[in-house]
């Protein structure tokens, strides 16, 4: 019986080891490609870790220092950060309203916000493109190809998930606490500052990190609604495919750089990622 268990353990470990190799191998190859010259990439793929000996830094400096990819990177940082901040503030306000006030129809409002997350973005590309470039016009200013446009637009899929995630947390803060503060004469701002934000801090952190990640990773809307000035790093990645004679080394370098925030966040959000991706329907 005991040997059977040991065998099962060895077998499971072996299978998970294999799985880990399958997961990491393509990423490892991307790192290899990003450190090699085009000549070194020619011919039979060399899988040895040559980056310990020599790194072809030009793959990184060419797009990010000589090229426009630093602009793309900058746009991505601005858009994702502002969107995360905006979503967190708006979602906190909305969730507090949905949780504390008995508003008529608040159930339907809650459900309606969720449907926005489910809709396929491809179905909204044309109307958004037309609205952004011709209808939402303020003098000469249109939302098309602006960072503000993207920041506001990403709220459509980030707000629903943020509200869902925060709702469980704010519902968990006892009502008596806010009522006691109201009796003491505190206004709404003080309640947020002294009570809700400190108690919901971990949830708020997860919400803003995941919002940042979703905004950072978004490609389809950004590629359709920007042309020059507000291009983000994912749209820059797709540009490699359309040009003839792709420079694989540079493409791998850009892909690697655009993956970095995700890698950094992995450690912060790992425990909460299930709750984040399933809207808290399954506690992770």
């Amino acid at each position, binding site marked *: 019986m005991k040997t059977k268990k040991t065998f*099962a*353990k060895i077998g*499971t*470990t072996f299978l*998970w080891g294999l*799985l*880990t190799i*399958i*997961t*990491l*191998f*393509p990423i490892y*190859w991307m790192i290899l*490609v990003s450190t090699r010259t085009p000549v070194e*990439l020619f011919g039979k*793929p060399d899988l040895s870790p040559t980056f310990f000996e020599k790194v072809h830094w030009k793959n990184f400096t060419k797009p990010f220092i000589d090229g426009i990819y630093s602009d793309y990177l900058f746009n991505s940082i601005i858009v994702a950060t502002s969107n995360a901040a905006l979503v967190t503030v*708006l979602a906190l*306000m*909305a969730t507090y*309203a949905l949780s504390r006030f008995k508003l008529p129809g608040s159930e339907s*409002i809650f459900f309606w*916000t969720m449907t*926005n997350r489910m*809709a*396929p*973005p*491809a*179905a*909204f*590309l*044309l*109307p958004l*493109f037309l609205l952004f470039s011709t209808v939402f016009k303020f003098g000469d200013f249109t939302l098309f190809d602006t960072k503000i446009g993207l920041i*506001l637009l990403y*709220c*459509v899929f980030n*707000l629903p998930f943020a509200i869902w995630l925060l709702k469980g947390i704010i519902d968990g803060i006892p009502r008596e606490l806010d009522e006691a503060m109201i009796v003491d004469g505190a206004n709404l701002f003080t309640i947020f500052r002294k009570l809700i934000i400190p108690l919901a801090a971990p949830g708020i952190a997860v919400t803003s990190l995941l919002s940042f*990640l979703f905004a*950072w*990773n*978004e*490609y*389809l809307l950004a590629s359709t609604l920007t042309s020059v000035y507000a291009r983000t790093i*994912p749209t820059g*990645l*797709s540009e490699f*495919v359309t040009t003839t004679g792709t420079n694989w080394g540079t493409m*791998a370098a850009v892909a690697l750089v*655009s*993956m970095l925030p995700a*890698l950094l966040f*992995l450690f912060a959000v*790992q425990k909460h*990622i299930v709750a984040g*991706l*399933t*809207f808290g*329907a*399954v*506690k992770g």
Partner: protein
Amino acid sequence: MLSKNKTGWLLLSPTILILVLAGLVPFFYVLYVGFFQWNPLAVDPSLQFDGFASNYRRLIFDEIFLESIWRSIKFSVVTLSIELTLGFLLALSLLSSFPLKSFFRSVHTLPLVIAPIVVGSIFKLFTVQGLGPLPHILKDYFGYTLNYGLNAEQAFWMIVIMDVWHWTPFVTLTLLAGLSALPQDPYESAKIDGANNFQIFTYITIPMMVPVLIVVIFIRLMDSLKIVDEVWMLTGGGPGYATRFTGIHIWKEVFEKRYYGLGSAMSILYLYITIVICWVLYSVMVARGKNED
């Protein structure tokens, strides 16, 4: 009381405003444009009205569009079955303890946080002819030629493999969260009654996991029906129409051919199909919730 409600609406108003402007307004706009013939590159670039259903009538006979929907559904069902099976097995294995478990789990979480477009790039670098190691390995060790730039069947299955690589971890972790939250009493009574592992799995684990399974199916189905980014990166919808899923088809009709009217009608049908599938699953979820009360 009134002023209290007012404060509530005030707090909700920015959220509602944004969702109306970026969610509802585009929806009604696309519904409106769908009733017209509109091509800004045509001789007459204005909106032409020729009967409410003209675009929809054309779509019913548009084989490429219907095939793209069928392809999206087939893709969703195939990836969902593979990911559910694999994810369930992996989640079950994570319930027992074995060496390096937390390390394996962390690596398994990695694909989840990578952007779809980057996943597309990673697979492109890994599998493209002339650069990627995968075609070489398959050729040298198995005598199998992988060139999904020419082979339609391979292109479709390459996308399936990529999706499984990307999203199985989501299924694993979600099911694991569900499995860890299950009550232990039924297992203990079953063991006392002398049930074997297989019986315990089919008669206790599966029925108790149904709510979590439905959530996973719901989310994965919605996401795979709207797949665009990684496919665009890997195959661009080709070769031919082999990987042209509905989202990509709409993009091509609207932004390459500039069929604004027809594209809008497609968008509406696409939304409609997604909503119907969504609604069916949601009803199942709600019905089950009521049974349990």
